[in-house]
């Protein structure tokens, strides 16, 4: 008799499985979990902490907060950040002072570990939410984060 009860149980479990998929089939119109990506670009918003790329915010007077301390360069495990610095003369005190010339960021080498942003003492760099980073030429992935002729924000070093 176990022969027939096996058949009965087998068919029953198969129908149970079909009821699960069948339920989703019927409610498929509202249940789809697909995002239609390029179409929803306008409404697609990443989370604040999303790690897309490292950016250096500038204010309206084209000033950034980077003092060129190079802590991020040391903290980076992959050599993603290169700071080319210079000694310029401070306008107020007239003394020689370290300032950044170029903050070079190689996105192609970045693993988005966040250690640079974690160690930055002046919050000069932070995460950008842009995730569309593909380019046709890999040289485009090497970026200079400080804008041309930008200056250090006043009061950052205090």
């Amino acid at each position: 008799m176990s022969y027939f009860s096996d058949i009965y149980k087998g068919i029953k479990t198969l129908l149970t499985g079909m009821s699960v998929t069948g339920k989703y089939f019927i409610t498929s119109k509202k249940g789809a979990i697909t995002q239609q990506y390029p179409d929803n670009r306008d409404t697609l918003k990443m989370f604040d902490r999303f790690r897309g790329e490292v950016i250096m915010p500038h204010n309206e007077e084209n000033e950034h907060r980077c003092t060129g301390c190079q802590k991020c360069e040391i903290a980076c495990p992959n050599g993603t950040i290169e700071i080319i610095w210079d000694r310029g003369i401070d306008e107020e005190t007239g003394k020689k002072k370290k300032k950044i010339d170029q903050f070079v960021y190689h996105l192609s080498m970045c693993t988005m570990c966040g250690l640079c942003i974690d160690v930055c003492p002046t919050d000069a760099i932070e995460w950008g939410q842009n995730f569309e980073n593909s380019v046709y030429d890999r040289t485009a992935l090497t970026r200079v984060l400080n804008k041309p002729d930008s200056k250090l924000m006043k009061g950052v070093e205090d």
Partner: protein
Amino acid sequence: MILLSITENIHNWLFSVMPAGVASIVEMVLIAIVYLTVFAVAGLFLVLLERRVAAWFQLRIGPNRVGFQGLLQTMADAIKLLTKELTGTDRADKFLYNLAPYFVIISALMALAVIPFSKDFHAFDINIGLFFLIAISSIGVIGILLGGWSSNNKFAIIGAMRSGVQTISYELSVGLSLLTMVVITGTLQLSEIIEIQKSGWLIVQGHIPAIIAFMVFMISGTAETNRAPFDMVEAESELGAGFHTEYSGMKFAYFFLAEFINMFIIAAIAATVFFGGWLSPFGITESIPELGVFWFLIKTMVLVFLMMWFRWTFPRLRVDQLLTLEWKYLLPINLVNIVLMAVLVWLNLTIRW
């Protein structure tokens, strides 16, 4: 009778303008072209349907970019496959390798010829229709065997051997479950089988044994077409792509299309034999025979959907369990079922109205 009058007009016109021999050849070519069109359209539509249905089962949307709601998606795929390079292995048996896809696709086409789409839409109404279908449906496996064997690839040959084992076993059940119904009808001719169902679909006429036969037929029919949960032949998590590992471009597309046409054929046979073919339920549209195609396609599509539902729900069987299912369960049940049906017919216990 629009359809009939068109075909009759063409028939009369052809025979009036040319000698009888030439006219019949032209007619045959015309019918072949019509069927090839049906074949291509059905194949492309079924591929799209499968993808959309699968997507709906899986909480996805499915192809919806090419054309309205993705209607042209498979057309685009076919064009892509046409333009692809035909690769192959170095030491493959070139003749058999190239022959195999045609075996598969031609057998699928031949089976299509005997299926009654409607009262007058029936290319080849021979008196051994059902037998012809059973015989033809087993030719396709030769193509699969040849393809797997000649590809010179071990994964392909494992797939081909599995396919041989599987088809030889499941043919028995397909045949026997259809023969169970022949006990009621007493004829193998498909048009007569439908004629008999005017007094009730066979699944109603034969009640219990007919339902058992239908279930057996759907299971073994799914196995005949090598679809999940019986897709041992491809079994992509085990064999990569199985027997068509080494095929590309249009030759692969033939295998692919044939799978879907075979699915259509199995569903069409089930609709014809168990659910009255092009007959409308309770004869509600008996006065409008043009709707026959519509009813036939509705019934077939419901059964096709059932097979898709199987495919996207169940895990795959192992090759030895596949044989266990056939030889220890389906075959004995089937044999008992035939006897049961015979007793039913003998005692006149069938339900008719």
